[in-house]
Structure formats: structure tokens, C-alpha cells
């Protein structure tokens, strides 16, 4: 870099030594000196692994009976175009990616920036994929029976019934709002059909202080936290009662009161934001974490890399939940990435991760609850990949039968339905009956229809809301424009729709 007299170098500055070495050595010393207190605190927390130790061990254990089901389901996750994959000449057969060798050299280690690393004279490429996919954690089988009594967090009757009710409510809500859009009453809607377990069970596993940054297919989390059907309807209609004041498209719900940040359309932007929220919670020493959701497609965004990498470096308490539902609009996951899903990416960032059967409410509950505890007590990010299937279309602007088989959709809707599966377990325990079912569904349906009718009739936002909230305090030019527009509307009422409110 050419440096002129009297000016500073304006490219990224070059050091005599590679930056990493200087930074690593001095910053470590620096941190050690200044923050001995906080370091000791963190390291003592790390020693107290508790539940996390058990879960880590599980990842490397031999396959369990659940594996047969998994292999069956893996067909549906992989595209028929597996012929695109190359056969590795040296396929890794052991669970660990790095193979131990008997060479003497390997006992010695080399010093590099980033720490000591052993060496080997055997040239071995880490294969692009492990011979065995990471298994997914599951508690209930397809018939709603508990597979193994170990390793899940028990759920009380009260909690289980509430979870089931909310899953069913979400189903009814999605159905009715979808129909309302089809009837032209709202302009847009997006369902979570097939992902009710992820929505509700994850919300149930969090504390109300945990800050949620959703993508857009998680209204169930807000539902769990107390957002009413009327409030959902108001946002979809953008009426005067909408907390979003008619500023956003339908399904872009948000509520500070419920610690649920307003849904934002650009994909994956919520991931680095969640790291920032986690950092803020960490600095303020709150007993809470940030929880953020992303789909399989969203993990292709640059923000996924930035968000996860950063959260790990900052040691921010964030739980990243990826809903791997197989489809990003019409893009199947085989066209989205070539890794074994998302869970394997965790290790690439130094983040603890788990793959979970996203259609198993109890598994999701246990995993999210454990992840949350880890994130808060150990002040670290955790990644959860919840395997599921997007039964509905991407949104009301999509017709998924155009790019996937109707049979496939039907299979997931009927045989792999998360709501039915959980229902069986709740019923088997004697906590739910058919009578309860029909009562819940009909009353929810009725409430929703009434909510829609009422929301439709509510007047829309007044003209003043056009200019509010651009800034904290309206700037002068906005004030002038508002005055001008009001005068114009009053002067030329025939140019504006009837009932237009100033």
C-alpha cells in the first residue's frame, strides 16, 4: 500500500507482523489482566457442565432404534438427484472427523496463531460429508408413544394440555386466515402448517423475558405468549387497533410487551441482530437470552455466517433455531446447500448444536429448554436444527403443487402430522378427549370468524400516522408536509375515499 507523506493509509492497514499474531498474544494478555474477574466467572461456569455434558455425549453415541425411522425419512429429505454427489474415495467411517493415527510425529504439536495443532505425515482430506448423517433427537414415535424414558424433560398435564390446545389453535388460525386471504379480505397470509410443534413447543420452553427475533413462520411463539386472535386479525387488516399502525404487511406481527420483535421481511437479518440482542442482555447481566428463528433457505444468506460467527466470538447468549422444512419457496434443500443440513455448521463456528425431530413436540421442548439454559448459564450461543416439513405453500402468493408432488404433501400432512402425534400422547395419558377436541376447535373457529369480522369493520389509521414514527420527534419538513396534506384533503375531499380519516 502506497503511503503518502502526511496522509494515513486508507486501505485496511498492514502491520509488520500478521495481525492475528499480534492481536492474539497481546489481546489475550490484555483481557487476562483487565478481566481476570469475569474470566474466572466464565471458566467456573464452564466447569459446571451439568446437563450439557450429557447432551454432548449423546451426539457421539452409537445409533439408537430411532435410526430406522430416520433412514426412512431421509429419503424424503434428499432429492432424487443424489447422482450429483461424488463418491468419496476415502470415506470417513468413524463418527469423529479427524482420524487418529499411530505415527510418532503426531504426538508433537505445532504452534500456530489460534493455538497448538498436532500434525500428521499422512495426507488426508476430511471428506465432504460423514458416512452417517447426524441423527436427530426424538422422544415420541409416530404413534405418540415415548421411545425411551431417559433424556427428556417431563411435561406436566397442565403444560401438555396447554401446548396441545395452542398447537390446535394455531392450526385453526392458519386455516381461517388463509381462507380469508383467498376470499380477498386480507391481502396476504403465510401459514405454519406442519410446523406447529416447533412453534409452540419452543415457545413453551422459553421464559417470557427471552427476546424472540422471528423470521416469519413463528406466529405460534407469539400466540403462546398471549397475543390474542383479535390482535392477530387487527395486524392482518392493518386497522386502527393494529399495534403496527398499518405500517406493515400482514403476518409481520410484533409486540414489545411480549418480547417478540416485529417480523422483518429481508431474510436472515434477524441473526446478527439476535447476536446484538444477546450481547446487550449479556452486558446488562439479564437472566435471559435471545432466541431467533431461521429457515433452511435463510442459512444461505451472508447474515447467517456473520450472525453465528459473531455470536460465538462474543460469547453471546443466543439460541439459533433453524426450521429445516425442506423447501425455500420452490428451492429444495438439495439446491440450497450440500452439507448435512444445518447442524454440522455449528461446529464450523464453534457453536454447540443439536438436530431434533421438529415434529416431536416433546423433543423440541426438551432441546430448546436445555439450549436456553446453556445459553444463559454458560453465556454461549447454541444452534438447534429442527427437522420438519413445510406442508403449506410458502405463502398465499405461492402454489407449491407446481414444484412438488401432491402425494408428498399429503404424506406429511396426514402421516407425519405433529399435532396428531402429540395429541395421541396427550390422549393416552388421559388428559384430552374427543369432546375437548371438538369444543376447542369449534370455539376457536367461532372466535376467529368474529375477530375477522370485527377487524374488517374497524376503521383504518388516520392520516397523521403517515408521518409519525419516521423519527422519534417529527422533523420540520414532515410537519410541513402533514399540514399541507391535511389542507389538501379538506379542500379536495372528492379525490379521497369516503371515510378517509384525517
Amino acid at each position, binding site marked *: 500500500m502506497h503511503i503518502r507523506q502526511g496522509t494515513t493509509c*486508507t486501505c485496511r492497514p498492514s502491520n509488520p507482523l500478521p495481525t492475528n499474531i499480534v492481536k492474539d498474544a497481546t*489481546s489475550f494478555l490484555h483481557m487476562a489482566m483487565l478481566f481476570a474477574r469475569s474470566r474466572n466467572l466464565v471458566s467456573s461456569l464452564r466447569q459446571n457442565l451439568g446437563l450439557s455434558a450429557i447432551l454432548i455425549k449423546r451426539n457421539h453415541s452409537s445409533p439408537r432404534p430411532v435410526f430406522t425411522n430416520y433412514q426412512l425419512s431421509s429419503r424424503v429429505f434428499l432429492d432424487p438427484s443424489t447422482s450429483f454427489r461424488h463418491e468419496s474415495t476415502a470415506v470417513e467411517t468413524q463418527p469423529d472427523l479427524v482420524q487418529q493415527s499411530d505415527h510418532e510425529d503426531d504426538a508433537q504439536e505445532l504452534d500456530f496463531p489460534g493455538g497448538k495443532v498436532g500434525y500428521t505425515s499422512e495426507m488426508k482430506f476430511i471428506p465432504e460429508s460423514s458416512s452417517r448423517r447426524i441423527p436427530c433427537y426424538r422422544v415420541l414415535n409416530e404413534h405418540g408413544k415415548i421411545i425411551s424414558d431417559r433424556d427428556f424433560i417431563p411435561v406436566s398435564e397442565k403444560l401438555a394440555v396447554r401446548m396441545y390446545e395452542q398447537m390446535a389453535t394455531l392450526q385453526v388460525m392458519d386455516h381461517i386466515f388463509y381462507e380469508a386471504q383467498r376470499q380477498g379480505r386480507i391481502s396476504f397470509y403465510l401459514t405454519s402448517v406442519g410446523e406447529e410443534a416447533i412453534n409452540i413447543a419452543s415457545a413453551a420452553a422459553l421464559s417470557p423475558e427471552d427476546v424472540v427475533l422471528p423470521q416469519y413462520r413463528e406466529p405460534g411463539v407469539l400466540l403462546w405468549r398471549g397475543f390474542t386472535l383479535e390482535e392477530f386479525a387487527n395486524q392482518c387488516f392493518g386497522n386502527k387497533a393494529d399495534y403496527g399502525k398499518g405500517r406493515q404487511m400482514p403476518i409481520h406481527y410484533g409486540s414489545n410487551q411480549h418480547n417478540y420483535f416485529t417480523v422483518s421481511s*429481508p431474510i436472515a437479518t434477524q441473526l446478527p441482530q439476535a447476536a446484538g440482542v444477546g450481547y446487550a442482555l449479556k452486558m446488562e447481566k439479564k437472566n435471559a437470552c435471545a432466541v431467533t428463528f431461521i429457515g433452511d433457505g435463510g442459512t444461505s444468506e451472508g447474515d447467517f455466517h456473520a*450472525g453465528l460467527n459473531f455470536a460465538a466470538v462474543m460469547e453471546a447468549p443466543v439460541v439459533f433455531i433453524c426450521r429445516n422444512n425442506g423447501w425455500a419457496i420452490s428451492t429444495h434443500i438439495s439446491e440450497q446447500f450440500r452439507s448435512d443440513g444445518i447442524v454440522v455448521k455449528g461446529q464450523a463456528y464453534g457453536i454447540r448444536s443439536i438436530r431434533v425431530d421438529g415434529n416431536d413436540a416433546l423433543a423440541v421442548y426438551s432441546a430448546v429448554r436445555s439450549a436456553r439454559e446453556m445459553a444463559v448459564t454458560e453465556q454461549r450461543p447454541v444452534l438447534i436444527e429442527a427437522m420438519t416439513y413445510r406442508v403449506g405453500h410458502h405463502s398465499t402468493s405461492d402454489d407449491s403443487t407446481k414444484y412438488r408432488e401432491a402425494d408428498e404433501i399429503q404424506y406429511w400432512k396426514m402421516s407425519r402430522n405433529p399435532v396428531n402425534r402429540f395429541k395421541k400422547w396427550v390422549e393416552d395419558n388421559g388428559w384430552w378427549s374427543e369432546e375437548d377436541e371438538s369444543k376447542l376447535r369449534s370455539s376457536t373457529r367461532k372466535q376467529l370468524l368474529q375477530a375477522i369480522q370485527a377487524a374488517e369493520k374497524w376503521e383504518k389509521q388516520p392520516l397523521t400516522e403517515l408521518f409519525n414514527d419516521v423519527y422519534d420527534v417529527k422533523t420540520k419538513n414532515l410537519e410541513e408536509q402533514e399540514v399541507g396534506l391535511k389542507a389538501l384533503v379538506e379542500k379536495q375531499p372528492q379525490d379521497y375515499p369516503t371515510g378517509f380519516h384525517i
Partner: protein
Amino acid sequence: MWGILRRSAVDGGGFSASSLRRTRFSLVSARSYAAGSKEMTVRDALNSAIDEEMSADPKVFVMGEEVGQYQGAYKITKGLLEKYGPERVYDTPITEAGFTGIGVGAAYAGLKPVVEFMTFNFSMQAIDHIINSAAKSNYMSAGQINVPIVFRGPNGAAAGVGAQHSQCYAAWYASVPGLKVLAPYSAEDARGLLKAAIRDPDPVVFLENELLYGESFPISEEALDSSFCLPIGKAKIEREGKDVTITTFSKMVGFALKAAEKLAEEGISAEVINLRSIRPLDRATINASVRKTSRLVTVEEGFPQHGVCAEICASVVEESFSYLDAPVERIAGADVPMPYAANLERLALPQVEDIVRAAKRACYRSK
């Protein structure tokens, strides 16, 4: 771990929005040149502004590449790491999109990040977060999510750094509702506007200039006070005149003042307006000045099409058309990506002579 938390002895009341507005009012009435025997570089002005705001409010923290250990790529954040610790002066990995998104998230959660871009050219890698996550959030969430964040860094041309390090982003960011865009010139501007930006609950884009960092300016006692703050949205008349109005911002203010000196020798009294605030633009001050002088020369370093000058021309034509005695003169950078070679670079940027010539043209003194 918290850094040193101490309220400055001078600062009696809190930094609430209302006290800020009160301060703004009293300062507006007292405005004149910064008369004082003390001098301060823009670099020190920015450093002291950040330091004081961090000291006063524990929620303020700095984030960016090389801001901590390296003391800042341009040494603007010098000494802050030692004083406040790595939690509040955060060295980020190389990901503008990442740390901008994180800054916005932290702001959502109630902290007040000051995010440094090594140059605003690199902010393009994060522009989605600046616009879609920061600028629009308060509006789209109907006031539930406000973003008290400051994005700062050098903007515009430096010297011999080529096209990818020399673009001016004033017009780009100033076109977005929801953002405030500031461009300081002097040390006093730097201090007052940065302090105002950090205290402001809205997202602020703070456009500095690398070549100004080392320049010294006289600074008043008032400006050195820790409660000093300049109002956002108010331009400053750097030099009064009656024949032609010259509006500009950042480094070009210095050039305009030199041009005004040269014009004075030839009997043309130029009024130089330092915009300070690109959004909101102080149309009132600009128009009042044009109504006084009847002639306008507007100057900027950035690309000519859709620039800040274009907006000023439109404003003046809309509001003060009948007062104009000559067509508006617009001086901007050349409509080419910035070349590297020194001679070409000089030709691609406005120079003092260009401003003088334009002013004379406006005054019908030459072709």
C-alpha cells in the same frame, strides 16, 4: 465488566430528550464563530466526544474493525479500550453486514452502539441493515422498536486511494426517511454533532472526512464543555456575505472559505453555508440566504447525478425562484469512478478555482 462510570461534574441534569432540546435552543441563539485561543484537531474532537458520551451513559458502546487494540484505523477511538474495556470497545471480525446487524440488534435491545466503518465505502456491504433494519424500524414497528445507533466513519475522497475508497455517500443515505445524516467540518462541528448524534434516539449516519482528521481548528470553551451539543438540522453560516451564496459540507467548506477569500479580493462578497446536516436539510437557512444574495453556488465532492446539490437546487427553485438573478451553479465531483493517479484525481474533484469561477459566473463577472 463496566468501564469507569462517572457522570461528568459539569453535567448536572440528565441527557433526556427534553434537556437536549433545551440545550439546543440556548445554543442556537448564541451561535457565532468559535472564538477561542484553543485549537483542536478533528480527530481529538471526535475522540473526546465519544469518550464523554461513553462516560456519561453506560449504554453507549463502540464497535468496529480495529477500534480497540489498534486504537482505531484512524486513531479516532484512541485510548478508549484502556478506559472502558473490551465489552464497550468491541473489535469485530471482518463483517460489515455482521457488525451492523449486531449493532442494530443491540440498539433494539436498548443499548446505544456507535458503529465504525473503516470507510463508508465498506458500508455498502451492510447497507441492508442500515436501511432495512435501522432506518425503517421505528416506522414499521409503529414506534415499538427504536434504533438509537450511530454509524460513523470517513466518507468521500481521501488522497490516492482509488475508486473503491473514495465515494461520497451523503446523497445515498440522505435520501432515506428514518435516517439522519450529518457531515461535520470543523472540530467544533465534529464534537457537537457527534455528541448530538449519540444522544439522538434515531439512527444517525455520521460522515467524517479522512483528510480533515489531522486538521486543527480553533475551539471555544463552550465547545469543550462536556454538555456541548449542536442541533441536528441546522446549517451554519461560516462567513456572511451579500453577493452570492455558497452551500457545501465537510471538506469542501474549507475550499469554499478559501474561494470566498479570493472572491473578496475581486469585490465579490460570498456567503458560505456549512450544511452540517444533510438530512434533515436546513432549507430555511439556505433559502433565506439565497433570498438575500439572489445567487447560489452549491458544492459537493460526490457524484453529480442525484446528489446533495441537486436537492438544494430543487429546493431553491421551488421556494425562492423569483429571488434568483442567475441560474443555480452546481459543482460536484466528476461523473467517473475516482481515478488513482494524482493528476487525474485532482481533475476529478472540485478545487478552489472551480468554486471561484462558478461564483463569478453567477455574478455575471465571467463566462
